């Protein structure tokens, strides 16, 4: 039985074909094979949330997914949130402006998780934001600013939506 396998994965819109060991995690594949080191590894057993990426449109722990399982999948990492011209994702910009990051280690996972929350629930309560981010650990303990930033993003998107409707 081959211990390596050829896989084809779309990451941030780009198609990669690689041969990988079957026991390689998707997180290590992204970091070490594709050099996309924005995805961080904390606990490597699914508890800390630092390695959260988007897999076929849904958040997933890349440390609990094998690279071979992503064969044929569509993956978005923190690097994929920026537009091609370098413009930050609106939530990245709001995190930056509202001091919602300190050391930055948890930030990629926080952003992927919060973007999924806002897509599912564009107008969350503070409790819903806390609940959604409860699987992402910030060891700087800067939670309040992160929660505030997500609520600000929801409010701004709501205002933008209302303005668009008026026009």
């Amino acid at each position, binding site marked *: *039985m081959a*211990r390596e*396998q050829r896989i084809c994965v779309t990451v941030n819109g780009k198609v990669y074909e690689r041969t990988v060991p*079957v*026991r*390689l*995690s998707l997180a*290590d594949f992204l970091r070490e094979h594709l050099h996309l080191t924005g995805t961080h590894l904390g606990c*490597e*057993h*699914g508890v800390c*949330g630092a390695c*959260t990426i988007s*897999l076929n449109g*849904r*958040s*997933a*722990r890349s*440390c*609990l*997914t*094998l690279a*071979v*399982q992503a064969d044929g999948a569509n993956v978005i990492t923190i690097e994929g949130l920026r537009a091609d011209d370098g413009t930050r994702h609106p939530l990245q910009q709001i995190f930056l402006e509202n001091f919602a990051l300190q050391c930055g280690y948890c930030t990629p996972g926080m952003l992927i*998780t919060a973007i*999924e*929350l806002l897509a599912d629930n564009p107008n969350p309560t503070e409790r819903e934001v*806390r*609940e*959604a981010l*409860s*699987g*992402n650990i910030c060891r700087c303990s800067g939670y309040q600013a992160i929660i505030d930033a997500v609520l600000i993003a929801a409010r701004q998107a709501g205002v933008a939506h209302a303005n668009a409707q008026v026009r």
Partner: protein
Amino acid sequence: MKPAWFDYYAPRALSEALHILGDAGQDGRVLAGGQSLMPMLNLRILSPAVVVDINRIEPLNELRADKDCLTVGALVRHADLLRSADVCRDWPLLAEATRQVAHMAIRNRGTVCGSVSHNDPAAEHPSVLVTMGGTVVVAGRQGRRELAAEEFFTGTLSNALEPGEMVVQLRYPRPSARTRSAFVEFARRLGDFAMAGAAATLTMRDGTCEHARLTILGMGQGPFRAHAAEQRLTGRRLGPKECKDGFAEAVAKVTADVDPADDVHASSSYRRHLAGVLALRALETALGRTGGKVG
């Protein structure tokens, strides 16, 4: 951190998966959502020689609500249950418990059958399956068998699967129109493994409890069905005045009968206390949902 080497198979047909598992015997493990197996591989608590990834076996995605029963295939994720209008409307105990499973990223990947197979003492799904009187459909190279939930769970992280077998479906009977339920748990942080929890169903007719089911989780052995507490409630009037005494007797049975172990998260006596508090909360909530008042 890396898992030990294994041979990896990703068959597209169940028959093929069962064949590989049959050959592997004790050395084989099924990979579905990976939310329990992958941590154990990463930590090298387990190092199976063969991993059979079932994610490409399309028919295992089946999630079907029939007149009598809900069928949940081996690839149905926790999040799939919560996106099903049928489940949220007609199997509310299952939906309420599923909302409390870990976090969104885990619910997106983890499967209901995986949680049942793994039988972590703190997991929600084993207790719900027991409380609802559900069954587990198991398949192996030799064929299929269907086990009652209580036959399937055989103790901490243990089940009745023989080497080479896997869970292919769970079946949850449709609750009667007069049944109301509640699922409650307590964890230090949202989404953590619960220290304790309780699942209750009450089937009421004119203020009398026709049928009661109560299961406690987090006591260390997998789901604990509180038979003695159920007996105190079945056939009893649970009006606004009577329910207090009835529930107090049931809760006293629960705290007497559970046998939790000490661990780093909580002492045995604290877990016993939690079992009583959560049993009462689940019973009161379920009764409230029948329209009954808690006096």
